[in-house]
């Protein structure tokens, strides 16, 4: 199935499916600026980013710390507002949306996977996975069913009643991915999802993300420091000084 792209990297792992240039745009960003603070604390974090993410793309976001990639992810996740520039999500202008509207945008279209997993403590895996559906007003029976399906998909159906403290790091991250999937988002934003995991668990998580992208057509934007992780993606964005300096396949960007 992945023979076509297997030649690009050593075939030790699977790679995200390529997306046709004609695929519809999920995100369109033009001239995005973000400025923090004033005076001594003034930071120009983004200095005019332009890019398009297509439906079904798996994008790795890279760059040294302070390059603006985290700020970019916050904009993309509608957690923050740009100082200047335009951001269309499926053709909707996100820029003028208020706090509550951005919350609703996240609720219905965006999901997050974090480096530190960020599951609710003392709460079972099942309840954690259900959480986005509660905010969506899904009834309890349907919620349970859907959450169980998602846990089964990440291979943790038998851990449904375990709390995060009773799960290993890799398992916690899989629960977090299940949680991100329950709401059937248009875009998953993953912030160093393998940052706290050893290489074997990291590979597991990356395989899972790639599988979701290939099989379910999920769009994924993933921040990572590690070229090995970025190699799973179909496209890499390299941030430097608040700008996308390089944009292409992992082979093109990382050499």
């Amino acid at each position: 199935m992945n023979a076509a792209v297997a030649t690009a990297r050593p075939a030790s792992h699977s790679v995200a499916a390529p997306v046709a240039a004609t695929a519809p745009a999920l995100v369109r960003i033009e001239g995005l600026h973000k400025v923090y603070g004033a005076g001594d604390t003034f930071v120009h974090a983004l200095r005019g980013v332009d890019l398009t993410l297509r439906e079904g793309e798996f994008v790795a976001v890279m760059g040294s710390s302070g390059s603006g990639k985290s700020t970019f992810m916050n904009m993309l996740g509608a957690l923050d507002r740009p100082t200047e520039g335009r951001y269309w999500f499926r053709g909707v202008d996100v820029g003028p949306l208020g706090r509550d509207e951005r919350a609703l945008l996240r609720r219905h279209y965006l999901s997050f996977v974090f480096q530190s997993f960020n599951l609710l403590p003392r709460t079972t895996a099942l309840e954690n996975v259900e959480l986005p559906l509660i905010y969506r007003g899904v009834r309890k029976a349907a919620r349970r069913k859907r959450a169980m399906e998602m846990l089964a998909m990440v291979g943790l159906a038998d851990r449904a009643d375990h709390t995060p403290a009773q799960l290993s790091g890799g398992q916690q991250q899989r629960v977090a991915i299940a949680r991100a999937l329950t709401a059937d988002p248009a875009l998953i934003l993953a912030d160093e999802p393998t940052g706290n995991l050893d290489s074997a668990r990291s590979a597991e998580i990356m395989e899972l993300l790639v599988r979701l992208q290939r099989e379910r057509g999920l769009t994924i934007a993933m921040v990572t420091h590690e070229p090995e992780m970025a190699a799973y993606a179909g496209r890499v964005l390299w941030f430097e000084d608040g700008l996308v300096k390089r944009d292409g396949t992992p082979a093109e960007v990382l050499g």
Partner: protein
Amino acid sequence: MSGWNTFVMALRAITRHKLRAFLTALGIVIGVGSVITMVHIGQSAKQSVRDQIASLGDNLLMVRPGAGRGPGGARSAASGFDVADAEAIAHQVQGVNVAPTTSTNALAVYGNVNWPTSVTGATNAYFEVRDHAVAEGRLFDESELKAAAPVCLLGPTVKGELFRDGDAVGASVRVGKLACTVIGVLESKQAMMGSDGDDLIVMPLRTVQRRLVGTNDVQMIYVSALEDGTTARVQEDIERLLRERRRIRPGADDDFSVRDMKEIADRVAGTTDVMTALLGAIAAVSLVVGGIGIMNIMLVSVTERTREIGIRMAIGARGREVLMQFLVESVVLSTLGGAIGIALGVGGSFLATEKLALPFVLVPDIVGVAFFFSAAVGVVFGFVPARKASRLDPIEALRHE
């Protein structure tokens, strides 16, 4: 998110930290508990006073010679009443039952047992006016009243002291120097402000006047208004009549007093009300202190759960939903505390009234008010922490360690 889900979520959050939740609500438990206890004991004491005074008889007026209080607090000397005064009241004031009485203290002796008690000389009207029922035997008959016959009815205490479980009716008891035949035993009445209402002997008025006291004076005339709500009118009529009969000039003070038992009862009850309000107010302060306790812990909780708030916001919770979550949590905590406080307060005051031999009165109003207030405390003191939570920046909150 639906209200029910918010509620369930709040319950989950609370059950995750049971001990902390209990300690948080403890202030409210104590506050509500003490309000409930104070008010219930107060109301029970008031009811007890009411009951005692009602047990004296309905619409009772007590007419006594001598002004209530002379200058300097001394009782001024005044001539006593006689039977004619009582008859005048009975005939000239409408809708009354009149019972002239004279009392003295005497030693009652039966066999080798003696018992000091009070002896009241009265007519049969006395039993109606004072609401004394006869447990066994009979009342006086006309000839006994006229002839100053040596017959008597015993109060249950006297009967018990002299006869134990034996039969009293028909026996001969010596009262002072007078040997008299027991014709009946009264039914028990409630204790009256520390004095035993059952510790008495009743004889015909003339028997006491002539054979025990040696005067024809009537010391006290009990008057009961036959119709409810007419005591004030009856009191006025009696005062006017007695001033006329005793030739008191207009403007001069009465040399007798007509006291309305109900008025006394109301005054005592009023004092109890003030005490209740005072104690209730003090207890209410502890409710506020409890509220501050809730605010304190909720603020800590918001800080501690900053990351959780960040996660919820990232998932798509709006500010108002986060606000509601924390507000509902504090309201659930405070009403839970209120409910426990109500249970403890009602239970505690029930036991206390039992111990104090007071009638227990449940005051549903105050229970409702206490519950409402504990919920209100949750809203008021939960609002600041909840608003703080709702205004967090999701990015900052997610980074929080």
